[in-house]
Each structure stands twice: as structure tokens, then as C-alpha cells.
């Protein structure tokens, strides 16, 4: 059974059709990247999957459960197994980094104070920001916020993680580190990941499977290698600029 399955999903805002009858299947333990130009609805799509937005029509199944018809309590049980990294990181402004990370642990699981502290430290270590533990979000740079957001997302060891542009705005070295971290997580915890990105470097490290959104529909779905060497004018255009970078930088 597919871990995540989206069936005929549509979402409009006013007169704007953002998602138009999208269907998508992601197997357990698989990493998928979602490409698309800014404003095509990538964020809307993954928000619909976790029901932060209610789609107009369609269905979403996570581990066989129809997310859109679950009661609040049941939905929360599913959400405890899901991690979501927001494009804006969405750190809680009023809480320190330590409190941001321990918040989901304390609220949703029965860990002792000591266990929480250990988990917080090891999550920060993974994003190389141990020294930021007592800082407030306002004291962090954009890239640091993103990494703290990532640490908060993975700290509960979710089975399914949705990343909204995890490497946008990060330097190339951090981008690589974060991408490798996502791969490690998938290996260690057998997580399923959906990664929204523009970043081909990141995509190549993370995933073999890719989806391209255009005008509310899925323009391409399949192997990342084939996608990059496609002859379709739109896809070619979309990837040319990035591909040059990749060729010159020789990503391994």
C-alpha cells in the first residue's frame, strides 16, 4: 500500500485554480521531490496533504486512512507521525530554540525532562547549531531559522516528512549538508519524504523520483534522471539554468 496517496485533488482560491485534479502516489520509504515555478501551488499541495488547507474536492490517504474525513482526535494521532517543515520555518517567536524543539515532545509524548534535553541537543547537533540552544528566533539569521525549523521537524522522528523548500536561501555547503541529512533520515528511520524544492543539487542528493507541477496539473512524474534530460520545451527551460550549475559543480 502506498504510504501517501492523493486522488483527484483540486483547490481554488476565489477564481484562481491552484490545484486541478492532482493524483499522486508515494510509496513507503520513498523520497519524492516536487518541482514547479513559484506560485504554482507546491506549498498548497503539501498543506492539503496534511489538511492544513481543505481541498475543494479529492481525497488524501496516509497509511490507508482518509485524512479529510478523520475526526479531530484521529487526525491528531496521524499528525503526531508527520513532520512538516514550513517554507518560512515558522518558529514560535515567543519561545527560545530549546522551547521550540521541546514543545512537540513535551506536548505529544511522555518523555522525561532528561530525555527531552538529550533529544533537543542531538537534533541541534544534526543541523550543526548546538550553540543556538538558548537563543530566541529573532536572534537567528534566515538560514539558521530554517535549520532550527528542520531540527524541530525531525525531533519527533516522524514517519512521513514534508519539506517546503528546505534549502532555499542556504549556502551551497549547508544545502548539501541538509540534503544529506534528509537522505540519512530516510535510511535510519525509514521515513517517507516529500520535498518541495527549486534546487536541483538538493533534489539529486535526495531523490530518484520527481514530480513537476505546472498550471495546477502534474506536468511530469517519474525518474529524476529522465526528467533532467527531457526534450519537452517547458521542462528543458525549467532545468537549463540549474543544470549548468550542476554540471560545472559536479555533484556527487
Amino acid at each position, binding site marked *: 500500500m502506498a504510504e501517501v496517496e492523493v486522488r483527484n485533488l483540486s483547490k481554488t482560491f476565489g477564481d484562481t485554480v491552484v490545484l486541478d485534479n492532482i493524483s499522486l502516489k508515494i510509496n513507503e520509504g520513498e523520497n519524492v521531490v516536487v518541482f514547479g515555478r513559484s506560485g504554482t501551488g507546491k506549498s498548497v499541495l503539501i*498543506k492539503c496533504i*496534511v489538511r*492544513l488547507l481543505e481541498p475543494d474536492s479529492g481525497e488524501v490517504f496516509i497509511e490507508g486512512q482518509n485524512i479529510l474525513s478523520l475526526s*479531530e482526535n484521529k487526525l*491528531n*494521532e496521524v*499528525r*503526531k507521525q*508527520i513532520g*512538516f517543515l*514550513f517554507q*518560512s520555518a*515558522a*518558529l*514560535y*517567536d*515567543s519561545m527560545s530554540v530549546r522551547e521550540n524543539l521541546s*514543545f*512537540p515532545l513535551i*506536548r*505529544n509524548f511522555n518523555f522525561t525532562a532528561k530525555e527531552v534535553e538529550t533529544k533537543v541537543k542531538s537534533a541541534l547537533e544534526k543541523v550543526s547549531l548546538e550553540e543556538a540552544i538558548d537563543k530566541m528566533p529573532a536572534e537567528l539569521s534566515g538560514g539558521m531559522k530554517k535549520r532550527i525549523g528542520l531540527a524541530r521537524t525531525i525531533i*519527533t522522528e516522524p514517519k512521513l516528512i514534508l519539506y517546503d523548500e528546505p534549502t532555499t536561501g542556504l549556502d551551497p555547503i549547508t544545502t548539501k549538508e541538509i540534503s544529506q541529512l534528509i537522505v540519512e533520515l530516510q535510511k535510519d528511520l525509514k521515513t517517507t519524504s516529500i520535498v518541495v524544492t527549486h534546487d536541483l543539487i538538493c533534489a539529486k542528493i535526495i531523490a530518484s523520483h520527481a514530480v513537476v507541477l505546472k498550471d495546477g496539473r502534474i506536468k511530469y512524474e517519474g525518474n529524476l534522471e529522465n526528467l533532467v534530460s527531457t526534450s519537452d520545451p517547458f521542462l528543458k527551460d525549467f532545468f537549463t539554468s540549474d543544470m549548468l550549475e550542476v554540471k560545472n559543480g559536479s555533484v556527487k
Partner: protein
Amino acid sequence: MDSEETNTDTSKSVSVSVKRLYEFFQTVSGLSLFIAEFFKKVFIPPYEFAEIKKHMDELGVKTLPIVSVTGFIIGLVLAMQSQPVMIRFGAGSFLPGMVALSVVRELGPVITALIFAGRVSSGIGAELGSMRVTEQIDAMEVSAINPFRFLVVTRVVACTLILPMLTIYVIFLSLFGSFLAILLSQGISFQLYLNAVVHSIEFSDLIPGIAKTFFFGFIVGIVGAYKGYNTENGTEGVGKASTSSVVISSLLILLVDMVLVKVTLMIWSN
């Protein structure tokens, strides 16, 4: 030419008023649903006592200086203003009682509530508004933590509980202010002043005066939270949420006060 311009002006202003009216009714219905949601959530555990206490502390610290000054000055000025009039009518000895009654029944509760609205409703509107537009509320929701319960219910409960305390404090300060005014102008012993105050105030003055502040506190909290929680249009929306919270909660306080005064008078008329 001229008449044509006025014509379009009129139609424009009509359409603006229709839009305003529509927005007003939208707010009323939205707020009602929000209040219903609050009562659905407030009695079901977990109660988040720690979070409520934290908000009460913050609200107290935030408003104590300004309500202190206001309370003291209300009493002082009220006594100063009323003194010549009372003396003219030969009722100088009723001055302490008159001030005490006004402060306990009306001025203390309402003025404290209005200041509280200005300071707190806008604060809650801005705080929750910025949490909404920066996706912090979504982040909470997707981590399986109910943001309504954690952010809204705790703040509204804190407001409802803290305003009555602040009001009692303001009443005491006003009474002290009026004592000073009377002492300075005509000289009165504290004992005599206290006697006059205690004799003129009955339970039926004190109870409704304090009781209505629970409603006022609730209004301040729920309006600020409603406006903030439903903020749209990014940063601009946050500013709007903050200012409109103050306007709406102040108006509601005065309206509810009017209704409650009428109700109290009906109950205690005999």
C-alpha cells in the same frame, strides 16, 4: 458636470457603506462562532493552568502602571470636581459617599476595562495576527497541538480573570485619590472618610460593579483573539487586526455595560 460628479461620489460612498455594513455583519457572525468554539473547548481538559497563569502575570505587569495612575487620578479629579457642587447644594458631607458610589458602580469598572481594551486587545490581536501570517499557528496545528486551545482559550481565560482583580485595585486607588483631594481642600480624618465610604456602599453596589468586569475581560480577550486568529493579508493585516480589536472591544464594553446596568437596576430596583 458637477451633478454627475456628485452622483458618482454618492454611489461610491453608498457602496462603501454597504461594504462596511457587510463587514460588520461578517464580524458579528464570525465572532459568535468563535465564542461558541471557545465554550466548546474551555471546559474540556487539559486546562493549561500554567499557560493561563503566565498570561495573567504578563497582563498584570503590562497594565498595572497605567491603571494605577488612572485609578488614582479618577478619584482625585472626581472629588475635586464634585466638591463645589455638593457644597453648593449643602451636601458636602456626602462627597466621599458620592465619589465611592460612582467609582464602584460605574467609573472604576468601565474605565479600567477601556484602558485594558486599549492595551491588551490590541496586543493579543497583533500577537496572534503575526503568529497567523508567519504560519506559527499552522505549525502548531500540524504538530497535533490544538492552537485554539493553547493560544486562544488561555488568553481569553486570563483576561476574564485578571480584569476583575485590576478593577478592585483601581477602585481602592481611586478612593485613596478622592481621600487626598478632600483632605487637601477641606481636611478630613481618614477614619471619618472611611466611615462615610463604608456606610454609603452596599453589597448591591459592589457585586454588580465587579461582576460586570468578568464580561468586559472576556470581551477584550475574545475580540483580540478573534481578530488576530483570523488575520489575513500578511503584515498589513496584523496592523488592522490590532487596531480593529481595540475599536470593537471598546464599543462592545460600552454596549454590554448599558445592558448590564439596565439588568442590575431591574433586579435590585426593590
